[in-house]
């Protein structure tokens, strides 16, 4: 699977919540997109990722 453009391992039953935890992202400050579709926060624990998935994890940064 790809997370923010980087190839990563995808273990079995790997939920979005588990992915955020493994990758060190704070659940509160991010939004998650799975194959171009936004994953709602309340679906993080139930959405299971697959080997071919493309995941983006975004947050706010300083900007003009």
């Amino acid at each position, binding site marked *: 699977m790809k997370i923010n453009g980087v190839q990563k391992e995808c273990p079995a039953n790997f939920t979005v919540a588990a992915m955020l935890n493994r990758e060190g992202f704070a659940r509160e400050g991010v*939004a998650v997109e799975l194959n*171009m579709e*936004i994953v709602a926060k309340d679906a993080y624990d139930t959405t299971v990722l697959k080997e071919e998935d493309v995941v*983006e994890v*975004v*947050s*706010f*940064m*300083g*900007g003009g």
Partner: protein
Amino acid sequence: MKQDIFMLGGQEFQSRFILGSGKYNVELIKAAVEQAGAQMITLAVRRANSDGEGNILDYIPQGVTLLPNTSGARNAQEAVRIARLSRELGCGNFVKIEIMRDSKYLLPDNAETVKATEILTKEGFVVLPYMYPDLNTARDLVDAGAAAVMPLAAPIGSNKGLATKEFIQILIDEIDLPIIVDAGIGRPSQACEVMEMGAAAVMANTAIATAGDIPQMASAFKKAIEAGRQAYLSGLGRVREKGAEASSPLTGFLRD
């Protein structure tokens, strides 16, 4: 003077200074916001870092409205994607559309901006489109449901001032939406001037971020914007194209 409220997206603001948060240390954001008296601050949406860097939202004082931008978008579709992600980050419906195809001058793509405005307005966003000051595009943005129009004064980050002054004035005169001048304003005097012209608000980032003392420059901009606004509301004194006109009486001189 009666209270001068700035209405934007159904929300009331007392401040007419929108502050950017780019290019400076997050530790300075609180002081900059306070000194600016800003009630709205822009943010960018990017791939998250997992290096434990603090959440920028922790540095922004309570009660400040967040204005995420769609910087990085090269077309309407990408802008819509970023806007949706920004809303998912849970900080309201405001979005500043920023679409650039040109990487040298960073000029906004007006046609794509209109398209993105149409889509996002339908999705319930309060859309503030950053644009090149063109009257036809501004009219299209009105039709597309924009909450304001944000023309550039000069190329982004240039601090060059009011390069597009005449065209911004046309938008102020002809467009029945708040005109928020964004990009290129480098000095408080330029912010003041555009407020005197009748702009509804000013957005600045680089002018503050590259100043010697960031909070102090934020304060200088606040005063300039307030002064310009007050001058506009007062109605500027007239210009006499030729000759002069004494301010003191032309009688009672101490001579025969």
